[in-house]
């Protein structure tokens, strides 16, 4: 396997030992994310307190990229305010859809390792799904899908 591979140690590690994996007892917010094209499905539970993500947990069946992205996302947004989480969702999406290679990604911290997914157009959805789901959960829309819009990279949640 070559060095360009997205399957770097960090991602494999999050896949093997996902952080914040499981469920919360009585979450204040919840959403299910679904990618009908590959069958990936994740459930996200959140406890919001004073506009902050107090606790967060995810579970589901998915590929390594989706699982690592979920795991890293939950670590990144824990303790953050709703606004901060929304900003991170936007920045993460920017990283995966932007055409420019050399923009500064340092503000994304560890999430940078997922930037390589940009070169795998068919896998971008796998990495973005948890973020769609987070957006849906904190806006209480309940359900997110990668197929709600023709532009897969927009963050749109199904309103049910």
């Amino acid at each position, binding site marked *: 396997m070559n060095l360009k591979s997205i399957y770097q140690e960090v991602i494999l590690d999050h896949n093997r030992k996902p952080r914040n994996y499981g469920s919360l007892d009585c979450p204040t917010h919840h959403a299910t994310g679904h990618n009908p094209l590959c069958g990936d499905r994740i459930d996200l539970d959140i406890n919001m307190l004073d506009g902050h993500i107090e606790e967060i947990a995810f579970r589901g069946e998915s590929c*390594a990229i989706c699982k690592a992205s979920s795991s890293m996302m939950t670590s990144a947004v824990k303790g953050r305010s709703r606004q901060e989480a929304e900003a991170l969702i936007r920045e993460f999406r920017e990283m995966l859809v932007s055409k420019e290679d050399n923009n500064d990604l340092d503000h994304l911290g560890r999430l940078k390792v997922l930037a390589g997914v940009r070169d795998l157009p068919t896998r971008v959805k796998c990495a973005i799904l948890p973020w769609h789901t987070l957006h849906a959960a904190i806006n209480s829309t309940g359900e997110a899908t990668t197929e709600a819009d023709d532009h897969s990279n927009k963050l749109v949640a199904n309103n049910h």
Partner: protein
Amino acid sequence: MKIVDALVTSSAQQTTALGIERFRADFPILDIKVDDKPLVYLDNAASSQMPQAVIDCLVRYQKTQHANIHRAVHYLSNLATQEYEAARCKLQNFIGAREDREVIFTSGTTDSINLVMHGYGRKFIQDGDEIILSELEHHSNIVPWQMLAEEKGAHIRVAPINDAGEVLVEEYEKLFNSRTRFVALSHVSNALGSINPVKRMIAIAHQHGVPVLIDGAQAAPHLKINVQDLDCDFYAFSAHKMCGPTGVGILYGKAHLLESMQPFKGGGDMIASVSFEKTIYNEIPYKFEAGTPPIAAAIGFGVAIDYLEQIGLDAIAAYEHELLVYAASQIRTIPGVKIVGDCPNKVAVISFVIDGIHPHDVGTLLNQEGVAVRTGHHCAQPIMQRFNVAATSRASFSFYNTKEEIDILVAGIRSVQKVFAQ
């Protein structure tokens, strides 16, 4: 059985000896590299590649023959019309249809099935009627029938499969009753490769007076088809899965059924006369070919048929079977890998899952080795549900693939496991 096996093996060896290399050389795309690795193209069930003869035909057509058909008296239009109709005759002979007017050019299998749904289904299927499908169907042979059932208040009944991926014919037979009006079955499953005993299943349907559509998208590239021998009422397939271009396919239908049906699309070419009071439809097949068809693609399809017939469908089937047996035996030796739908009567398709590794990761990692496989639900979600998996990886072979390529696939699977074992 043994004799047949022996024959298959000996003719396969012959094919190998005859030089699969020669056929491979006809496919320029097989020489490309994927990140410095030679392409190993094992996604033939999704779309196969085109030989030089088909590519040349498409170029020649665009450069020297292009015009609209059936509409003008000038030189180019005559030429295009002749070539287009000649392609229809090639398709007729290829499937052993009685008449060329029983072959309708469509945009592909999906379009063909929708044509039958609209033209036959909406006219003859009513509230409370039943349509039988199998559990092995591709979405394109499920969704149109569901749309029809919803519109008409009809019901879908599903013939189950066993763990090997074979339709249970006895269960299928039990589904028939006085309300059964239509049967739609795949000849070969795209997700698993299982070959359905369609001849027997058609005979059972006919005992109940029920017409049958066969989705032959995965059969026509690999097996010799004779629609009169099968006695199917409709048969559909796409050019792009059998060395032809995208955008074209056919629907075969028995003439008397096609004549009884209503047109699917309205427009030019499908009419005999039009006034604002009344339109008289053209005869079959033109009644179903509204508008300008994919002329170049249809002519290219004809050349693809010539190409396949030159090699011989029996030789193709024998060689591909050899590839299947080799690939299956190699993949079975890898611990933690399971073949989904492992029945004996298959075309060269292997759907597999690897313990603890999602098929999309398998696909991405194999791609880094130059190996193209399909991963996902293969537009056959009911099959995935049946086997309790979200998705599989699928290697599907063509006569231009080699055992060396299978070795690369197998090595690739092992290295995927290594990455995840880190």
